[in-house]
């Protein structure tokens, strides 16, 4: 097997590393490997860009036709895989270098984070419905346990809630997969796509609905996202960064990917997805206005951004989709930054409630400054990358003469500004920080800021020089939207 | 040299006309009220008496400079008003100015004096200044709008050009644009600080007004400039509405006729409070002015 050209590694390597965790524990290599494995994959992914530019990579491990593992690495999935590896690398670095709590060190988080990476990579790479379900469960299970890691009441509650709602989602999706298999006898996505049109319309609708609800819950779309704030509030901020930065993006991608492949008629899908996206955006931004806990606020803001990405992806135009991919990248960076800052502030001020953070900028000026950068990034203000991606999406809508999404996005951004700037103002309030702030906290090692500063630098870079990513995201959009190309590359025939 | 002589002549003429007109005013009012009244020269005597006082009380340097500014302002204003048309004399520097400038210059002096009033530390003086500024705010809007109608009519802001365009009684703006004259008449009276809009200085009662702290020679300066300003304003209205004057006698005659008209109006009405003044100006003259604008601009 040729080493560098296989997408399998994105799944196999973290899986292997996770399963041999006892070995690494003994050799005291957990931290290094948690950082190293995704880093290696990141380098591998970056190296694959020229290859994938030529043609998508396919990897099929046949078990018994039509059952088998199909991995399909095209520009879109490669972009996301790169992003995921990068996100995990950064979080790992943060956990490694910072004054991390003990429950986030050791074997359990090591295994779970790597499994989460496996799940995320698998979700975007797989070309097979059943595999998709398997990866969905891998990602799900590791996420449930990760959110309960801290072993206290809110964490356990979050884990339990996540488990319940996640299982319900998986159930919906599994039902859809079963129905598809019964109707078509196919599980390969491309094959299903080809034969989906032959299914009776009512059944088509039912399958689509089941998938939409299942993946809608997972990818946090309104009205299926009511669980999100509780789970994000209960989990550790560093873990939440991965949920928001990695997991949701994977599910979003899957949802849109399936929509493109299966619903041959984009007009119908457009109505559904754009409606859901718009609702998610506006409801989440409004609800965030009154949140007094930073994690909840960030959760709602994350929902809002997901809605925005959905809105743009659901429009199925190449420009908005490219913008949406770009925004995914930016949003991952921003949310990593914000959640990691939240982790720092939590350690420093022992609380993330609004009133306890008043004047926090005095005790941790750098963290507060980074929060400002993150807030500006998430609001899409120049010179950060978020502005360019937002502009890209808006420009896509303007190009197509669609005015309502523009108005909606800008209105939502204004509301978003309403609460982010409230937080900034509180952080910089001219009052002495709460008494708890200075007691019994270990000073943060400077190295813990390194990944955060790296993110901030990248955000700035992407804002100043968005052309760096232009080819990748445009190709990704092309790969995602061009159904025939996918079918052709998988099955060798065009529909 | 010519300009200097000319300016001196204008100042002298203004001064002489000033005390005579105001002396007449006192006589006129006295007769209306069935008194004998003072002699027509009385204002000259009063003024000289003030100016020759041997001792003056001041409240700091700004208090001293205020009357100097107001006097300088009065002189500047009158030098920018052409007294005669088609003549080399009594022109001052009016070719370098225009109507809007004159309207603004009318205010420069009083504002400078307001600094002196403030610097005296007497709240009654400042109260007077505030009243004066309030009245100014009321009168200036219709006054300026009325003048704007004239400026619009002749498409110029130059007093010379407006004067030159009224070559004959039929072309007087009083005849061709009567609404504008009606609009500016009452604000003009107020700008002369005459009854019924004279609450600012509140003469006769316990004194509470801009001049409350001034005495001696400073009061003399204030009185001098007041007499000159009265004449300058009269001449300005003569220039704008009565076709200006070709010689000094005509000027005096026209100015006196106008003065008689305003004095008669002043004598007939009781004094208004400051707010009443403003409200009145914003209702009656301004309403008339709006009517004039509608007639002049929208309908024609």
């Amino acid at each position: 097997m040729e080493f560098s050209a296989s997408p399998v590694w994105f799944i196999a390597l973290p899986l292997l590393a996770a399963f041999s965790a006892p070995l690494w524990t003994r050799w005291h290599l957990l931290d290094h490997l948690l950082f190293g494995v995704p880093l290696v994959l990141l380098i591998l992914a970056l190296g694959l860009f020229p290859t994938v530019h030529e043609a998508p990579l396919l990897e099929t491990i046949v078990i018994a036709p039509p059952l088998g593992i199909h991995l399909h690495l095209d520009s879109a999935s490669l972009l996301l895989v790169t992003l995921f590896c990068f996100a995990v690398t950064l979080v790992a670095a943060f956990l490694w270098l910072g004054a991390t709590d003990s429950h986030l060190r050791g074997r359990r988080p090591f295994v779970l984070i790597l499994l989460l990476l496996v799940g995320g990579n698998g979700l975007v790479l797989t070309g097979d419905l059943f595999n998709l379900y398997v990866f969905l469960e891998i990602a799900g299970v590791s996420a449930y346990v990760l959110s309960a890691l801290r072993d206290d009441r809110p964490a356990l509650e979050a884990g339990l809630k996540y488990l319940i709602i996640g299982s319900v989602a998986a159930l919906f999706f599994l039902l859809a997969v079963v129905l598809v298999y019964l109707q078509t006898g196919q599980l390969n996505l491309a094959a299903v796509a080809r034969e989906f049109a032959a299914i009776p319309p009512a059944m088509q609708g039912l399958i689509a609905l089941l998938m939409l609800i299942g993946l809608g819950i997972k990818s946090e779309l309104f009205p299926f996202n009511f669980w999100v704030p509780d789970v994000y509030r209960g989990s550790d901020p560093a873990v939440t960064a991965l949920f928001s930065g990695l997991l949701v993006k994977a599910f979003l991608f899957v949802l849109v990917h399936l929509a493109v492949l299966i619903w041959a008629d984009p007009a119908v899908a457009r109505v559904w997805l754009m409606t859901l996206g718009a609702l998610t955006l506006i409801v989440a931004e409004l609800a965030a206005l009154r949140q007094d806990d930073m994690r909840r606020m960030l959760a709602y803001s994350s929902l809002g951004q997901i809605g925005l990405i959905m809105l743009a992806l659901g429009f199925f135009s190449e420009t908005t989709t490219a913008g949406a991919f770009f925004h995914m990248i930016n949003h991952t960076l921003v949310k990593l930054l914000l959640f990691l800052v939240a982790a720092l502030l939590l350690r420093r001020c022992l609380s993330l409630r609004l009133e306890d953070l008043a004047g926090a900028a005095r005790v941790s000026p750098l963290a507060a400054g980074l929060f400002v950068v993150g807030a500006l990034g998430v609001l899409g203000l120049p010179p950060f990358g978020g502005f360019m991606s937002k502009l890209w999406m808006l420009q896509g809508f303007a190009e197509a003469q669609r005015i309502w999404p523009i108005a909606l996005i800008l209105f939502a951004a204004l509301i978003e500004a309403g609460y982010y700037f409230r937080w900034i103002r509180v952080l910089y309030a001219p009052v002495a920080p709460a008494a708890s702030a200075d007691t019994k906290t270990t000073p943060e090692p400077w190295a813990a800021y390194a990944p955060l500063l790296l993110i901030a630098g990248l955000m700035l870079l992407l804002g100043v020089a968005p052309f760096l990513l232009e080819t990748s995201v445009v190709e990704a959009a092309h790969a995602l939207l061009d159904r025939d190309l996918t079918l052709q590359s998988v099955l060798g025939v065009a529909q | 040299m010519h300009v200097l002589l000319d300016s001196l002549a204008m100042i002298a003429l203004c001064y002489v006309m000033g005390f005579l007109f105001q002396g007449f005013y006192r006589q006129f009012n006295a007769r209306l009220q069935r008194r004998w009244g003072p002699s027509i020269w009385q204002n000259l005597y009063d003024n000289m008496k003030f100016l020759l006082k041997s001792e003056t009380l001041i409240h700091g340097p700004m208090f001293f400079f205020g009357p100097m500014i107001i006097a300088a302002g009065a002189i500047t204003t009158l030098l920018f008003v052409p007294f005669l048309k088609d003549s080399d004399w009594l022109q001052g520097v009016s070719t370098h100015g225009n109507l809007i400038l004159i309207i603004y210059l009318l205010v420069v002096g009083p504002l400078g004096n307001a600094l002196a009033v403030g610097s005296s530390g007497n709240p009654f003086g400042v109260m007077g200044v505030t009243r004066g500024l309030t009245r100014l705010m009321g009168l200036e809007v219709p006054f300026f709008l009325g003048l704007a109608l004239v400026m619009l009519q002749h498409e110029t802001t130059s007093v010379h050009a407006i004067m030159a365009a009224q070559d004959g009684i039929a072309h007087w703006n009083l005849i061709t644009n009567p609404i504008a004259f009606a609009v500016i008449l009452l604000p003009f009276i107020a700008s002369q600080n005459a009854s019924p809009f004279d609450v600012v200085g509140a003469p006769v009662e316990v004194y509470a007004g801009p001049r409350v702290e001034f005495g001696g020679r400073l009061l003399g300066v204030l009185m001098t400039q007041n007499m000159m300003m009265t004449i300058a304003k009269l001449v300005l209205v003569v220039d704008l509405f009565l076709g200006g004057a070709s010689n000094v006698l005509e000027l005096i005659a026209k100015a006196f006729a106008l003065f008689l008209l305003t004095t008669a109006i002043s004598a007939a009405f009781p004094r208004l409070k400051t707010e009443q003044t403003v409200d009145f100006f914003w209702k009656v003259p301004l309403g008339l002015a709006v009517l004039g604008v509608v007639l002049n601009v929208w309908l024609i």
Partner: protein
Amino acid sequence: MNLILKLLFLAVSLTPALTLLTWGDGTLAWPLFGGFELLFELGPLSAFFLLLLALGTPLVALPMARGTPDRAAYGLFALLLLGMQMLLLAGDFLGLFIGWEVMTWSSYLLLIRSTRTTLEGAQTYILFNLASAFLLLAGMLVFYSLTGDFRIAPLTEASAAGRWAVFILLGLAFLIKVGALPLHRWIPLGYDQAPDLFSAVLAGLISKMGLYGLLLLPTLFPDALAGLSGRLLNGPAAGYGLAWIGAITAVVATFKAISQQDIKRLLAYSSIAQLGYVVTAIGVGSSLAVGGAIFQTLVHTLVKLLLFITFAGIVLQTGQRRFNDLGHLIDRMPMAFFAVLIGIIGLAGMPPLPGFAAKYLMFVGLIDARWLLLLAAMMLSSTAAFIYCYRLIYGPFLGHANSPEARTATEAPWSYLVPQVVLMGLLVLLGIFPGFAIEVIVDPVLMTLGLTPIGAPSWGELATPYGGYDGVVLMTVFGGAFVIVTALFWLARGQMRRAGSPYDLSFAGEVPTADTPLHYGAGMGRELRRIPLIGWILAHTTAGVQAGLTRQTLAAAGLLGGLYRRDPQTWTLLAVLVLVVASTLLALNGGWF
């Protein structure tokens, strides 16, 4: 180290001047994505506003550099300068917007460095400004959808609806920035609460960016504003609406200014009013009026910088910022007194300072357009302005000292005095030479805007087709008269004696003491409420609307947030419910609907 930092900061503050001098005709392009690029070039319109920056920033930076260096503030100030220069140099909307946003957030972060900012003030500032920015973004996206390009160029082929959409969206964006009513509330809050020196930047420089936008607006339409909906009387009909917005803003803001008790709030409202004139003049759109607008922009920048820097010095020395807490500083801070004196003469538009030249041009422009009712409104506002101008000088400098600090204050440090002297000098020079400003500063801008230049026969003369005046003659006559009168007064016989005590007053027959409330500063203008129109204006504010809007939004937020506070059963139930309802609908419809 500190010294180096300060020098560096001062050097940064000179960058606008440097840009202005060295940019020349070059263009700079920076690629973004999808074939878009940022284009930077320096036209005369941008050069004019850059000139304002170049004048203003070093003068504010000098007092800012005093004391222990505030690194964050220096950094943010540098960013602010970067943003403003970017937006001025931008040849396309993208660069304009990027600069605009950088300016917005960096100014916000500078604003909240003051200990006096409240949450309400900060939120109002940022939300109004972001609303302005997003309207700008929306406008430029509509522009893009009409032309397929972000370059700032006339909309030649757009439909009437498209043009109006661009006009209204961009117009609103820029009007918020200049604080037109009723979108002004962020200005009194922001200017008041900002760090004292930063208020000078806000009022003097940042607000001018809105004017830049408004001046840019007519260039987007062929035949300027008249291209939108024809002409009314002798001006563009679309501009008539804009002009009324400006005039009403000027009138209402002037009365609001009169009723303020706080110096900086008064200056904030006066700033709104002054920019209201400019909006009116831009609405008129003729060469005279726009020339007046540009002139007024220049004068307002100088005046507001002067006043805010001076009052920053007073606040620094006394710690007091309300009219009734100051008083009689004329002896203790004579320099500040002269600065404010020159400032208010400029603010009131009195001759011989250049404020009059600007007003003259605007008035003549209105007469020329035959929009006389607007002229009346402007006249009302500019005479009412005398009252607050008088308060500005009476409250702090005249009357009686009303607080212990006011009794012991001394002149502000030299770093405050230098900018004051420079600005006073500039104002006086411009007053003497209005023709110079017309020839050198105003005319190039007018030519870029496609208007006929006004021209000036000599530097001292302001000439229009409606007549003009000579600044040199005016200044000579006034100065000469003043000198002669004063000299005569001195030469005449008689002596002068200074009053023995400040209470030696003619006070209705009584003898006031130190306890008698003699300072009229607080009450000044209170009786104006009895005038019906003014009483009505002062009794109404938009604070209630804003509070109501906030309350409703928060109520909606609470309602929606309530949805999220449930247990997993409900969530699951909801998912199933959606499935059932949707599939029933599907079944009824027989497929996709």
